[in-house]
């Protein structure tokens, strides 16, 4: 079945360093939608960015990601981490139109230290 894999459960880095959170997915469908959601402590998840176009970079709030269908990846990146970026980040897959299921990865807790 469809699935999302986030290999890092916990990422800790120093303010100002680059961020890269990994996301790979599995689906038999050729036109999936991929999403990154961010969840701050005691809040609900909020959409950070999304893509369905192969090899096109999408950006929002300093974060960017590129969907690579050849490698089934949608890694989240930011050039310089800020303290306020500390949160739980989920990669999510919407595999096909009409599936009505948004499948989440296990999440990566990002902690940015001063």
């Amino acid at each position, binding site marked *: 079945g469809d699935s999302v894999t986030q290999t890092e459960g916990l990422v800790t880095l120093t303010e100002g360093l680059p961020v890269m959170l990994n996301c790979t997915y599995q689906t038999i469908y050729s036109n999936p939608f991929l999403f990154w959601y961010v969840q701050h402590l005691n809040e609900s998840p909020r959409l950070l960015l999304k893509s369905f176009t192969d090899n096109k970079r999408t950006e929002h709030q300093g974060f960017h990601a590129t969907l690579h269908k050849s490698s089934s990846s949608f890694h989240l990146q930011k050039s310089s981490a800020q303290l306020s970026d500390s949160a739980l980040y*989920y990669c999510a897959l*919407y595999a096909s139109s009409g599936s009505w299921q948004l499948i989440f*990865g296990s999440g990566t807790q990002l902690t940015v230290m001063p």
Partner: protein
Amino acid sequence: AQTIHQWPVAEIKAVGSPLSLGCTIKGKSSPNLYWYWQATGGTLQQLFYSITVGQVESVVQLNLSASRPKDDQFILSTEKLLLSHSGFYLCAWSSGDSDYTFGSGTRLLVI
């Protein structure tokens, strides 16, 4: 603008007691509605979805049920709570078949 409201904000319930959680969407006609569950430290697991009033589809079986009595209302319930039901319950909506927007959630502790 669309707003999504969940109630209650938090609940502490005894094992074996009934539960009813609610979700209301305002400002959107015929939204697609979803229930998600997040165990403490866990991922987001989709429980149910509803594309139209009166029709609900189950995604996973957790001894829970859902209903959509009105176009803008989605209810999650069970007659007998288990300890494993503890967690964070989130209602979400979408206008198309992606782009989910989540409500503020209900925190449930079963003791």
